[in-house]
């Protein structure tokens, strides 16, 4: 079976000479929840632009569900739903019209379009905004409108370019839930985001792109396994003793109730807990100082530079 997305040797050089993509290879399997990460200007949006025909590629091959975009772009486009980074709808139109128009451009008759509009506006919490002009929507609502629009033709591959930028936490969580739901139903999702905890919590596989090249392409589990060191923040029930030294571990006192502990690959966190307990320190909660994926992301980008 053809993969959801296959990119071979993709290159893009803009008219001003900027080489945004320098031979990208990427493969996203059907049903995957895939993260495409990279710093600003790395080439993420250019890659997405090529896939959905808004950017003309300079070289390379792109296949969507086995359909080569050079051979039959309209057929490839039918498989794709795209949620771009910037709002790209007419803000003077009402929500329903924006969705009816998009459905129409895919050849979906009005009756079917209206049924799907009911469904997706309900799922995305926009049912009461159906007859509201798009300019009256909040930033988060506009993002959800773009998701509804991208899904109106029920694509098998959904590409989201920073879909949660500017969306509040509660709404972000409900969007995650919705995305997990449609992924579980079989839709392949490709996500770019700057929130690395978002990628870690949602995605199974990941590619990191920098300066137009893929730096790494693996599963998130494998990537995190390569992490050599993690830093934890531990909270104590009682005030901490002055002497906090623990043999074999690097620990430091942040304040009277808080410890920062560095765990190297191969070290046992339970062992640290036991030793602290022996010193009369009772830990009531712990957390990573920083997102693990973020640590790895920064480390990989530093290596690539």
């Amino acid at each position, binding site marked *: 079976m053809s993969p959801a997305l296959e990119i071979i040797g993709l290159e893009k050089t803009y008219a001003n000479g900027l080489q945004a993509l320098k031979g990208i290879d990427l493969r996203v399997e059907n049903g995957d929840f895939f993260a495409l990460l990279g710093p600003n200007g790395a080439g993420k949006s250019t890659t997405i632009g090529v896939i959905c025909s*808004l950017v003309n590629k300079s070289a390379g091959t792109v296949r969507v569900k086995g359909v080569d975009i050079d051979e039959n772009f*309209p*057929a490839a486009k039918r498989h794709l739903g795209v949620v771009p980074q910037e709002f790209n709808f*007419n803000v003077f139109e009402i929500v329903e019209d924006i969705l009816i128009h998009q459905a*129409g*451009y895919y*050849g*979906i*008759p009005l009756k079917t379009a209206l049924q799907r509009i009911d469904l997706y506006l309900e799922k995305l919490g926009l049912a009461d905004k159906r007859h509201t002009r798009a300019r009256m929507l909040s930033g988060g609502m506009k993002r959800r409108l773009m998701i509804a629009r991208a899904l109106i033709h029920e694509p098998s591959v959904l590409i989201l370019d920073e879909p949660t930028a500017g969306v509040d936490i509660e709404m972000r969580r409900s969007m995650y839930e919705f995305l997990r739901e449609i992924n579980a139903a079989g839709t392949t999702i490709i996500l770019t985001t700057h929130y690395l905890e978002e990628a870690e919590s949602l995605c199974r596989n990941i590619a990191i792109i920098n300066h137009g090249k893929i730096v790494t392409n693996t599963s998130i589990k494998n990537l995190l396994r390569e992490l050599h060191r993690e830093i934890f923040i531990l909270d104590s029930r009682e005030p901490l003793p002055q002497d906090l030294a623990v043999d074999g571990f690097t620990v430091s006192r942040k304040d009277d109730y808080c410890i920062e502990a560095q765990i190297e690959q191969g070290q046992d966190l339970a062992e640290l807990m036991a030793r602290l307990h022996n010193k009369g320190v009772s830990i009531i909660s712990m957390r990573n100082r920083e997102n693990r994926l973020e640590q790895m992301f920064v480390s990989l980008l530093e290596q690539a530079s």
Partner: protein
Amino acid sequence: MTPYEQWVALLTLMRKEIRRYTRIWSQTLLPSAITMSLYFLIFGNLIGSRIGEMGGVSYMEFVVPGLIMMAIVTNSYANVVSSFFGSKFNNSIEELLVSPTPNHIILLGFVTGGVSRGMLVAVIVTVVASLFVDLHIHSYGVVIAVVAMTSILFSLCGLINAVFANTFDDINIVPTFVLTPLTYLGGVFYSLELLPDFWASVSQANPLVYVVNAFRYGMLGVSDVSVGFAFAMIGAFTLVAYWYAAYLIRTGRRLRT
């Protein structure tokens, strides 16, 4: 896309375009009615009564076809240039570009919007004209064919302008500095017979001359140029404009990076 799906896409675009200009009718339909009423009143009635006959008919009758055609030209052009550039400006053109809608349907959809507005304004202006003069149609076939071909031609020109425009100022340059002068010099208010030979020959290069005269023939049965030649010229201009507009959409020039 199957033919049925293409039909749905075309209907969608047509619906969108028609709703756009009817929603803001006071900016799109009303101004032509007011402007043309003033033209009829001042040029046709007040000044025209002192001019007498032109081309074998009263001056008022003479200017009516040209003024109707002027309204069709400006409105079909303005509709497509503003709609297409607006879509480019707010990036909603991407909704179409990422979809499987074929390029010829995109082109046809926008052109249909321009043609429908041109024709609607033509009806309004004709009704206004009928308040000033008894209108007779010499040939319905010629009238309908000229109106259709002209509105298609200038809708396509509007789309080409919109593709190249970078700002809202750019969409006014062609109507102000090209279209309006060509219209005034295209024989709306005078017969080419009044011009010295040299300027009459120069006028032959003006596409508006063929549009205005072919339409005048359809209404009054008089024309400064051969009607067959006028149709051939309008057809040729339309084919060239279609080819170029289709080329721009296909290559994505100024639309895709």
